[in-house]
């Protein structure tokens, strides 16, 4: 069974069968990562461009490693080193890249909808590596993979996404993918960071972190932006830590057994205390490892479609 789409733009409307296929495929690739020679010839001769209009060291490296381990030719194109700074339009850049005969484009962009725009500009397979505060599908897939690996199931699992939901591309992708797989999803954070009408997506809103811990099997904790602009959304870091920060005392007070995910990079002492970030409940580095396997699976499944 091949994937039902030749692009991965988001998790909205991705059918259950596709998610299952990607997770199962990642399983076989994960094994390769533990071999002494971590490379298979699966995508030999295919060229993948990592088109990053926004800084993202870890996502770019994760994709690049996934590409190299599949023997694809990986080319990195980042804003600071490209003609973008000379004012070339996205359209011209993409047309130029395509003229060099590439097969797939992995795009990260600060404006939502840009990956969809690329599908109209060129014939390559497009993988969204994060667009604005819209979607980040491979992050959601690696989160699901990690949860499934640790808990053994997704169906009927209670998952709460904690933090700045409104300015997160991870939240929406997680909500779509988790709900498709039968999980019960809630969000928890200051009300200024909960996007309008999110309850219409069938998620509950929780304003108490203690309740979120008590009620859920999994917490997916998002990074809080600390820049000045983002700071307009909450009174102070102190207040955030006090009412939404997760620390060991809080976990022990409310519940023992819980799985904690974080897409990174962590603000230690803000959304997670250091003892939790390094503690027994978290699976943060496993997520990073699984990220490579998930991206290999996505690249493989899309790259061998046509």
């Amino acid at each position, binding site marked *: 069974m091949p994937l039902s789409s030749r692009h991965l733009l988001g998790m*909205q409307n991705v059918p259950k069968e596709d998610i299952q296929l990607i997770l199962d495929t990642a399983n076989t690739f994960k094994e390769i990562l533990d071999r002494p020679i971590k490379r298979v010839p699966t995508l030999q001769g295919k060229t993948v461009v990592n088109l990053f209009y926004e800084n993202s060291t870890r996502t770019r490296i994760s994709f690049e490693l996934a590409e190299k381990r599949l023997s694809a030719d990986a080319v990195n194109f980042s804003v600071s080193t490209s003609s973008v700074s000379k004012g070339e339009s996205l359209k011209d850049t993409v047309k130029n890249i395509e003229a060099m005969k590439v097969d797939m484009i992995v795009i990260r962009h600060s404006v*939502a909808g840009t990956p969809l725009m690329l599908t109209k500009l060129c014939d390559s397979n497009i993988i969204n590596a994060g667009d604005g505060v819209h979607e980040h599908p491979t992050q959601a897939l690696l989160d699901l993979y990690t949860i499934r690996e640790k808990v053994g199931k997704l169906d009927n699992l209670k998952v709460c996404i904690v933090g700045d939901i409104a300015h997160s591309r991870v939240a929406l992708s997680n909500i779509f993918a988790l709900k498709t797989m039968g999980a019960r999803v809630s969000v928890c954070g200051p009300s200024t960071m909960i996007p309008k009408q999110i309850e*219409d997506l069938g998620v509950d809103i929780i304003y108490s972190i203690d309740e979120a811990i008590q009620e859920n099997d999994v917490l997916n904790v998002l990074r809080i932006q600390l820049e000045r602009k983002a700071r307009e959304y909450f009174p102070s870091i102190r207040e955030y830590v006090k009412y939404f920060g997760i620390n060991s005392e809080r976990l022990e007070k409310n519940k023992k057994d819980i799985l904690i995910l974080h897409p990174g990079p962590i603000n230690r002492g803000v959304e997670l205390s250091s003892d939790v970030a390094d503690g027994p409940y978290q699976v943060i580095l496993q997520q990073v490892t699984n990220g490579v396997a998930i991206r290999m699976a996505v690249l493989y499944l899309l790259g061998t479609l046509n």
Partner: protein
Amino acid sequence: MKILLKNLTAINPEQNLQEKNIDLLLSDGKIAEFAHNLDYDEKAVKIIDLSGKQVVPGFIDIHVHLREPGREDEETIETGCKSAAFGGFTAVACMPNTEPAIDSAEVVEFIKNRSKNNIVDVYPVAAATVGRKGEFLSPMLELKEAGAVAFSDDGVAIKTASILKRAMEYAKMIDLPIIEHCEDESLSFGSMNEGINSTLFGLPPLPSVSEDLIVMRDILMAQYTGARVHIAHISSANAVKMVREAKSKNIKVTAEVTPHHFTLTDDALKTYDTNLKMNPPLRSHKDVKEILDALKDGTIDCIASDHAPHSIEEKELEFDYAPNGIVGLETSIGLALTELFHKKILSLDEIILKYSINPRKVLNLKVPAFKVGEKAELTILDLDEVWTVNKEKFVSKSKNTPFDKRLLTGKAVGIYNNGKLLLNGEIIS
């Protein structure tokens, strides 16, 4: 040259007039005869049969951006007028956010000169404040004398309540309206309507309360000063309700809506087509429903296109980077006839009120009448012509429309103004 228009249906609700199979003799830009069965020698007059067509007082679009001076690559007064004429308008009011802004008599005169002898009359709306910066009043008396018909800082709302109060008090002296683009600056950093769709599409949200706050401020200020305020491109249900209530209290407020705000909702944004990016943004179903009710009950007085030409390269950018606005002159009347007249939301009389009579009352302009000796200013409608929008055929310099390839029923097939007849895309003068 004399032109005899035969067998038309003449309608003018302002005159309580509806005459079928009537003939109209036009000479030197005026109505020479208006009667049944006029007979003339074909050698002396050009005879045109308009059986099945409705002839109505010339339509005016009171909210267009002609871009000249400043952005002649996007539109000029000449191409904008041509676009208006082909769209069925005999007149337009052009907004002052040009470069330089229309804030001096010289710029008003420049526009008047550029549009002299055009088939379309151009009425400049001047800036309410110098440079539209919201600091000092523009020279309104001088601007009026030069030909300005209203004052607006369109593109933005008048910056502070304090300068708004003075602008209203000053404009009241000459009975011209303040036209307001209602948007609270401190809430305007988004690129689509805030709601379930902005959450789903991940685009930065622009809440409708941003519009409501300024509509409320402007209504209260109009009540306080006794001046006239005209709400441009109203789009939010709450704003519409406030205008309705203000009218019931006899506050001097009028409002216009664009065809895109009564035709489309923010559901359409799922394509991320930058031709759906405008300000105010497309709103929800609830807002559109309120707008349709308000068109029907008269709360919304006018339909105006907010014709906003942009170059292809500007609109081909990523959604957040693309500028706001769409062209509208050549699709406006077709959309209104399709979405309002044929769907039985408005009668033809009401369409004529929104496009011809009410907007002229807002701007204190004389409504054209079917009367011998009067200036002839007419729009010719074919209510049943089925046509497909083709942006490549637009005569506007810009093609930024979300309505390309849309099937419409009803069209303005011609206009007569300033002694020139444009019919089915050809000038007959």
